[in-house]
Every structure is written in C-alpha cells, then in structure tokens.
C-alpha cells in the first residue's frame, strides 16, 4: 500500500503531469476493457482504492456518488452507499477528494449516481462541478432516454459524456436511439435485476452486447452525423478484435473515428465472469464484487490485487481469442 500512498501524496507522480482524464483512448487495440466501480467516500482513504485499481490496470473507473435511495443497486452497493452517507460524505466532499488526487489519476473517471442528485443543484451546475473535479463521464441509471434530454444538454455543455444504459428488454428501436445518444461508451445491463454478484453471468449479456454492436454498425453514419463531438472526453475506443466482417463492412468509424465500446455490467463477480462478460462486449464493469471486498475489510492493496487478477485473466483471454479468431470467428455467436 505504501506505493499508493506515495502516489496519493503526489511524491511518485509530479503534479505537473498532464490531465490524465484527457487521455481519450486508454485501450490498445485488442485489449478487453476493465472498468472497476468504486463507491466514493466509503472510507476516509477511498481515493487510495481508486489509485490502486488504476495501478492494477483499470481502463477507466466508475465513481459512485452515494445516494440515499439507490433503486437500481443491490444490497452490496446500497450498503456501501449507506455507510458512506453515514460518514457524512457529500457530492461536494467527494469531488474535493477527487480534485486532490487529480494529478495522479491517469484514467477517465465516470460518475455514477441517481437523478435526484443531478437535479437538486440543477443538471448544468452538477455537470460543471463534475467537470471541474476532472470527472469526464456521467451515468444516471434512473434517467432513461425519455427523461434524459436536459441532462444530455447540460453534460455536453460541460464537456461531460452522458453514458446511457441498455437493458436486455430494450426494444430494437429504443436501443438504436440509446446507442446513438450515448456518449463515452454504451452500458449493457447484463441481466434483469439490480447490481450485485451472481453465480453465473446471464446469457442475456452476450445477446444484448451483440444487439448493441449490430445497432452501432447500422447507425454509424447517422451517429456520426448527429454527434458533432461524440465521446468527447472519456470514450474508450472499441477494440477491433471482436469485429465481425459485417461490422467492418458497415463501417464503424464515425466522426469520432471509432464506434463506442460496449461495456457489460451488473452481476460480474470475478475473473472468470469478467472474461465472459468482456468477451460478450468490449469490456466489463465490475462493481459489487469489489465493494463486497472493501466492505469486508480489503485494503487498497488487496483490492488492487483483485483487479490485477481480473486484468490478467482478461489479457490471457484476449490472447487466446486473437489466436482463435482466425479459425472460429464465424461460428462464435458470443462474439457478435
């Protein structure tokens, strides 16, 4: 843990380091993205966990701003949120913490929170504060497409990517619109249910990721047209390894030069499931599995090791996949 504390203290990384979040593309081609979720403010040293998972190979980090009524979250995240709120943390104090460690942060940070926290100060003000603290993305799970317009505008003006979510039950028509309006990445809800670890990854995850990618391919031209500045700040480039010949044929590079990555989340509980989810999409969000560890007493170093193990598993799988790809791509339904 000492190296992280050093990092946090700014000794290992000079303050003059360029804005890390400005690095728009973190994933090299062929790498499955790994995006850990952390409940902000859970412990006093919560930013140590953030830096630890960054060091362990996170491609971006979702920073959960705790809300009193986290409707879409399962027991683990809710418990983490409650505990953070009981400590007295606020959105302001969290953003202050983030500003303090900003020099050490080299991956995009994406705020994950609920609509009421956005609307209370007003979406423009809220997004401005995020941007000021170096947060480059925003996910609001109780803000479906139909209610998102005001926040979309405010986020775009503040230079924050509003990432939208797609669920297994989302209709094709609606999915197409979400894909076209989402920024940063597209969040594929792997299963019907709340966040939290599951014994097995739902088969719906792969199906959904495939549907999203298909929609991205179909909408690429209009997407490019409708988005003057797509994935302005946080977008993670979709890796090419999983592209089907059809996708390539449809052309997936809009004005941004790349379709958005599809990240699969909800119910990813360990390296094996991370590999499976990553294979379905372009990457994976892991939240409850990590927060369960922290609630159970894991140190930043422990958590870093956990993430590193996932990173390693994903990397191994990526290598196997690229070796397999040439021979098996056509029959691999999972790979879109």
């Amino acid at each position: 843990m000492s190296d992280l504390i050093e990092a946090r203290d700014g000794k290992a990384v000079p303050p003059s380091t360029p804005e890390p979040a400005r690095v728009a593309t973190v994933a090299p081609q062929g790498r499955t993205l790994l995006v850990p979720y952390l409940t902000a403010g859970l412990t006093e040293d919560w930013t140590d966990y953030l830096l630890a998972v960054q060091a362990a190979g996170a491609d971006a980090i979702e920073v959960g701003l705790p809300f009193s009524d986290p409707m879409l979250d399962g027991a683990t995240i809710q418990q983490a949120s409650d505990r953070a709120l009981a400590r007295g943390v606020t959105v302001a104090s969290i953003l202050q913490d983030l500003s303090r460690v900003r020099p050490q942060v080299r991956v995009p940070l994406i705020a994950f929170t609920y609509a009421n926290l956005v609307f209370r100060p007003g979406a423009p003000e809220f997004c401005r504060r995020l941007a000021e603290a170096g947060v480059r993305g925003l996910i609001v799970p109780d803000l479906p497409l139909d209610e998102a317009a005001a926040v979309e505008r405010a986020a775009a003006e503040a230079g924050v990517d509003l990432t939208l979510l797609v669920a297994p039950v989302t209709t094709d028509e609606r999915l197409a619109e979400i894909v076209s309006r989402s920024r940063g990445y597209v969040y594929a809800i792997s299963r019907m249910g709340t966040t939290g670890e599951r014994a097995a990854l739902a088969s719906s995850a792969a199906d959904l990721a495939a549907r999203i990618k298909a929609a991205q391919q179909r909408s690429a031209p209009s997407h490019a047209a409708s988005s003057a500045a797509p994935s302005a700040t946080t977008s993670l480039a979709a890796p090419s390894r999983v592209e089907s010949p059809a996708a390539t044929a449809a052309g997936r590079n809009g004005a941004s030069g790349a379709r958005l990555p599809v990240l699969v989340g909800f119910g990813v509980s360990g390296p094996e499931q991370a590999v499976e989810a990553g294979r379905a999409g372009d990457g994976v969000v892991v939240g409850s599995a990590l927060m369960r560890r922290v609630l159970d007493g894991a140190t930043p170093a422990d958590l870093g090791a956990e993430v590193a193990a996932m990173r390693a598993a994903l990397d191994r799988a990526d290598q196997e996949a690229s070796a397999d790809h040439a021979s098996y791509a056509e029959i691999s339904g999972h790979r879109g």
Partner: protein
Amino acid sequence: GRFGDFGGRFVPESLVPACDALAAAFQDAWADPAFRAELDDLLAVYAGRPTPLTPARTLSAALGVELLLKREDLAHTGSHKINNVLGQGLLARRMCKRRIIAETGAGQHGVAAATAAALLGLEATIFMGERDIERQRLNVLRMTTLGATVVPVTTGSRTLKDATNEAMRAWVADVDGAHFLLGSVGGPHPYPWMVRELQRVIGEEARAQSPYVPDVVVACVGGGSNAAGTFAGFADTAARLVGVEAAGGAAMSSGRPGVVHGARSMVLQDAEGQVAEAESIAAGLDYPGIGPEHAFLGAAGRAEYHAVKDDEVIAAVRRLARDEGIICALESAHAVAWVLREAGGPLLPAGSRIVLTLSGRGDKDMATLEATA
C-alpha cells in the same frame, strides 16, 4: 402521468418496457366496458362499495361546522387501498402475470394487495420496512394469513421509502412474470394516473352522496392516493381541496422538487438531494415524497396542503372515537386533526360544509395508541 412539471418516468432502462406495457394495458382496460364492469362488480359485491357518507353529528355540533365522513374504513380490508388493488389485480391477470409485488408502509396496502392476489389467484410478495413490521404487526399477520410472502426490508430508514426501493428492485428481476402493484399515486407513469383513476370512485361516490357541493374537501396525504381519488370527484367544483400531511413527512410543506421512486415531485431532501427520512407516528404517511399530481395541484393553487403533528393526530383519533364511535387509522386522523384545529378559524370558517375522507380504520394502530396513553 405528467402533471405540469411533475411526474414522468425516472426508472431504470430495464423497467421502461414494462411501464410502457402497463400504460398501454391500463389504457386499454380502462376503456373496456367489460373490464370496468368486472371491477365495478368486485367493488360492490366483494369490497362493499359504495361506502357510506356519515354525518359526524356530535363533532359537527361541537365544532360549528357540517362534517361528512367518507367511510373508506368500511371497505373490505379496512381502507381505500382495496379500490386500487382490485383494479390492478384484474389488470395483472389481464396481462397474464402470475405474481404481484407490492410495497407497504402501514400494511394497509400490503393487506389489500395480498387480498386481491388471493382472490384472483396470484402470488404476492410484499416488501415492508422492518420498523413498520414492528409497529404494524397485525397487518403482517393478516398478509401471511392471506398467503402472501412478506419480505422485511432492513435498509435505510426501514420504512415505506426503503420498501418501495426494494419492491422496484424485485420488479426489475421479474418484470415478465410480476406486476408491480404500487399502492399510491407516486412512482413512474402510468402509476400516478392509473391509481388516481382507480381511486376516483371515492370522490365520485362522495359527491353523489353529499347533499351539497361542500365548501371544503379534506383528506390525508402520504403518497396521496385517497386524497387524489377524493379530489378527483370534486376537481370541477368550487370546493377547496385540502390535503393534510404528517408534520414529519410533509413533502408539500417542507419538501423541494426532486426525483424519487420514478417520478418528479415534491420530496423531503437535503441540500444535495439526499432523500430525508420521514418521521411520523403513522406508518402510512412516513414517506418523504408525495404523488406528482399533488405537487402539481399545489403548485397550481388548486389544492392546499397543511401539516399536523403526531400529538394532534392521536388526540384526533381519540376524539373521533369518543364522539362518533369511529376508530380511524392514524393516517386518516391527520385529516380529522386539521379540521379539529382549524374549525372556526380563518382556514375553516364556522359553518363550513366539509367532506372528509376517512381512508381507513384504526385496528392496526391500537398498540401504537396504547403506547401513547
């Protein structure tokens, strides 16, 4: 339901199709005379409608007003909640759901939901805050006797707010098989509209039963379904519409606009938007939000909202019991308490003709009442 700036559908993407389907199904059913006839029949031969409009003669004389009580306490299961659950129960069956999920505070909606499920052959899972389970033990026993599964909710304030979160989570996990039988006029579209329509029968009956258009129509407000149903019957009259909140859960009086449980409405919350924990002796009003239509009616000036304190509420239960022989629910007693406090004053001048909805009976509250004796 979008009511001016309020309402909407702030739900996870996973629930959007279900909300769409529900809205379409209700619209269809509500326009279907066969559905309406079946519901009306159940309301009459099963739930005991119409409920009477009882003149409170002793209180009226003592207060110098004319007070008529709409007796939802006499409806089957002991509150107005039965009106809503029978409608949604029939709808769930029409939508081929095998199961209902419900949240409950005081347990009145939970009992009603479990009742509708038993009657219509549906499974029932009821979420209820641990704290409410403790203080509304009778209703828990009633729900389990009716065959429902009662799931204790241990998160947050362990009251209605948290039970609602948990119910929505459970719905996400079984959105195909389950209908979320929301008990009040909150939540995402179509609930505030649908539940108001299903509760409209209160107001329409009361208006037909009242010998005159009253000066004031009063009802307690937590989520606000009995008030919404009552107001609906008098919206096009000159009657003043008064909703009475618990001082400890007064979203209208003390809240700010916010989004909770799927709708934009008035919400008790802190400066950053964290939802506050309400604190009322009435479990059914122990809720930091309110239905969006009330937020709209309040903002538009069509309805007014006032708050009464726990001790006024307890005194009101006792007064109504001793003067009229009616033990009403702590929730309903909020409306009574406001009348007791304001009668003869500027808000409720002497001679006012009042229709007050007694949303439910107080059997469930006897232990609470005893503890305050």
